[in-house]
């Protein structure tokens, strides 16, 4: 696995030391660094169009490939949600068959959680930002990185293929609980579920290869002077999420493999004795609860695999756009690490109604409430960063602020649901749907939008259109509250989730009915606004306003490349040297309100850092 390409990066540019507005100063004592002991990283150089853009080994391109694939799949998830909402609000139209409804629910959930959010945060932003922010030329193992993307693409294709097999995709719900997932009567219980499981196994395999790169690059391939505690929080978030994935995804893998065998070979890992349609099936003794434990041992850390990169990115966005040092950097790092560790001890709070011992449930209720502590620390730190900051209401900042509000919202309902006694009556109602869409759907998506508006100039050299962006922001932000706030109320009055039509059931009050129609209309409008965003992406990439270098006046290394967008090898002839952390905003005595990480101490002689 060692790279042994003979040639090193060629010289691309020689103005590396020219950083923003700071004059380069002749080397003085304060700037002295010992000569580098480690040779430069070997780099793969592509020679044809195919190896540059398609089978690319450059992490930046791989990141963009990941992002395109994930967003494309996510669009399908969005369309599926439209169809589901139409069915729920207007069952009289007879738009969907019951089986199709469940299939769409399942695919919507799986696509959004795994194939959109996970792939976009880690595969997309991880690949784009880790090498750039760490100051390395590329990922540690570029070839493995390329394989990781192609594995992901195959996983997506297998997933989509399940729409075209006899019986269609699986309709078992995104949790895929056996025995129902593989028993006749559930949509797609043969080919559909098998393809879904294979797709997940491929995803995990591809993802493990990606994770290998994120971890090794972050730990071992940083540039000189870049200690772990000088890294932007974005990298900390993505790095810790990858560590979580390293422990969590194997559980999904094991569960998927065993269920595939149950389905294809007729083993009884998870399948109990079943009488199906009057006939006894050949299985006996298997434990469906075991699958639930495996699934949620993956499933809960998965929530944080998505949330931690979002936390990291949002910390950077808030700090940069309020021109202020992040409040409590160390505490932010500890909170990320702490949340990561705790996330492995809360999984069974998804299983309160599975018949587990109440004492077991109380243990998990306690751990769940404990995890709220580091999470709350993060929220306080974001707010304290904003306090007395020079807040710029740019688009990334708007999305970051919207994230904080939405995350607090979804987090508070999480405290409700984390308690066994409150969860049991609310379980399987729309309250749960509202909770996880707020905390795990809308909140991370808002960060993704913020991050795209923030780093779009880095990728294309152009700014996204401000007007379209503002429409996109306000409709998405207000619209998602119009969608999910009423669902909390519906949950309280007892409207169950997963019912494909409930218009004349006694559960449903008149207000509940009209709310359903209202939610659907809001969902259609919010969904359509995302198309405006996509148009903005395409339009601005071609004809957007040219971005100046480092348009947001940020400190971190990704903006300090000799050319923007960064070229092959990222940093030109010489890797940058890092003299400070990424949060030197508004340092007293400095000429500008920001000091990039590569600025040597001699260039900012008058500045003072306050003692802590």
């Amino acid at each position, binding site marked *: 696995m060692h790279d042994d390409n003979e040639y090193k990066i060629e010289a691309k540019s020689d103005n590396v030391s020219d950083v923003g507005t700071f004059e380069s100063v002749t080397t003085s004592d304060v700037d002295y660094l010992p000569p580098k002991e480690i040779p430069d990283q070997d780099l793969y150089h592509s020679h044809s169009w195919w190896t540059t853009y398609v089978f690319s080994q450059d992490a930046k391109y791989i990141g963009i490939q990941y992002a395109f694939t994930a967003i494309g799949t996510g669009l399908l998830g969005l369309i599926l949600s439209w169809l589901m909402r139409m069915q729920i609000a207007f069952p009289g139209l007879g738009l969907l068959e019951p089986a199709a409804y469940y299939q769409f629910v399942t695919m919507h959930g799986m696509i959004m959680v795994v194939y959109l959010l996970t792939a976009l945060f880690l595969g997309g932003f991880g690949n784009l930002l880790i090498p750039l922010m760490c100051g390395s030329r590329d990922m540690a193992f570029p070839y493995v990185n390329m394989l990781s993307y192609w594995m992901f693409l195959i996983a997506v294709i297998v997933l989509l293929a399940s729409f075209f097999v006899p019986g269609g995709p699986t309709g078992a719900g995104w949790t895929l609980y056996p025995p129902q997932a593989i028993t006749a009567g559930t949509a797609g219980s043969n080919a559909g579920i098998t393809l879904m499981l294979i797709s997940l196994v491929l995803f995990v395999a591809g993802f493990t290869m990606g994770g290998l790169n994120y971890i090794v*690059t972050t730990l071992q391939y940083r540039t000189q002077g870049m200690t772990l*505690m000088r890294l932007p929080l974005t990298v900390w978030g993505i790095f810790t999420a990858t560590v979580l994935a390293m422990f969590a995804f194997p559980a999904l893998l094991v569960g998927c493999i065993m269920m595939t065998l149950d389905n294809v070979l007729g083993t009884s*890992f998870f399948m109990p004795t079943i009488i199906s349609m009057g006939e006894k099936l050949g299985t006996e003794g298997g434990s469906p609860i075991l699958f639930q434990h495996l699934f949620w041992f993956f499933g809960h850390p998965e929530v944080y695999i998505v949330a931690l990169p979002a936390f990291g990115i949002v910390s950077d966005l808030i700090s940069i756009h309020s021109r202020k040092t992040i409040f409590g950097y160390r505490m932010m790092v500890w909170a990320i690490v702490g949340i990561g560790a705790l996330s492995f001890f809360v999984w069974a709070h998804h299983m309160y109604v599975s018949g587990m011992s109440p004492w077991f449930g109380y243990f998990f209720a306690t751990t769940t409430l404990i995890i709220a502590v580091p999470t709350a620390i993060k929220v306080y730190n974001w707010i304290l960063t904003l306090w007395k900051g020079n807040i710029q209401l740019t688009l990334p900042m708007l999305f970051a602020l919207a994230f904080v509000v939405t995350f607090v919202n979804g987090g508070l309902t999480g405290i409700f649901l984390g308690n066994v006694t409150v969860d049991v009556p609310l379980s399987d109602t729309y309250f749960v749907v509202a909770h996880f869409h707020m905390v795990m759907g809308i909140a991370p998506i808002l960060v993704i939008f913020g991050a795209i508006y923030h780093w779009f100039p880095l990728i294309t050299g152009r700014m996204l259109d401000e007007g379209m962006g503002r429409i996109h922001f306000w409709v998405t932000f207000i619209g998602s509250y119009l969608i999910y706030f009423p669902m909390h109320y519906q949950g309280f009055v007892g409207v169950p989730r997963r019912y494909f039509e409930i218009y004349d059931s006694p559960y449903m009050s008149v207000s509940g009915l009209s709310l359903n129609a209202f939610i659907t209309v809001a969902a259609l409008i919010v969904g359509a606004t995302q198309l405006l965003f996509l148009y903005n992406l395409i339009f601005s990439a071609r004809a957007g306003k040219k971005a100046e270098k480092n348009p947001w006046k940020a400190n971190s290394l990704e903006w300090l490349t000799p050319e923007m967008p960064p070229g092959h090898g990222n940093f030109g002839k010489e890797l940058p040297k890092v003299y400070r952390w990424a949060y030197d905003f508004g340092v007293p005595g400095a000429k500008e309100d920001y000091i990039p990480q590569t600025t040597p101490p001699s260039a900012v002689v008058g500045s003072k850092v306050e003692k802590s």
Partner: protein
Amino acid sequence: MIEKKSIFKSIFEKPWEQSQALKDNNHDGKALSITGSKLGVRYIMVVSTVIFSLLIVSYSDRMLVHDWKIMPEPWLLWVNTVILVLNSYFFHKTKIAADNINYTKIKKGLFIVGFLAYSFLIGQLIVWYLLISNDYYAASNPANAYFYLFTTVHGLHLLGGLIFWARITSKLLKGSYNSENLRHNIELCAIYWHFLLCVWFVLFGLMLFT
């Protein structure tokens, strides 16, 4: 290489302080004093350990159910175990040869290693064949199912290792290697092989005693 602070200690640094900044400026950008490839192998071993541990946990949960019928272990499994032990032993010898930069010995060692690894895999397939011809199907009992699952996952891990073995061997034959890289890669492969031997001991022991 320089002695490194543990990652857990380094998160208590205050990067904004002058005294810390002076230390940090000299930092070489590595968190651990090992190569990236070695860290990569460790990462893979951690992921594999998690996979096998979860399989073992589910095994111990499932074996308590009344329908569990203990499966006999064919004598051939002992032969395969011996082959795997020899495999690790010869990889260790090859590693020593690589440390001494003795190319004839390295070549010989790698061939023996490959031969033994493939023999082990073929031996496992013969065990499967023996079991199937005696009507021990995966579907007939969970104990059988776990046996096939364990041997498959372990075998796939070995096949994965053989990909890297093949890369090293072909480079050696073509002569397109750099001796330091070659030594390091052989060392990493050897570590992985020893790891798979340990995994096999655990799995085989588990099936033997339950």
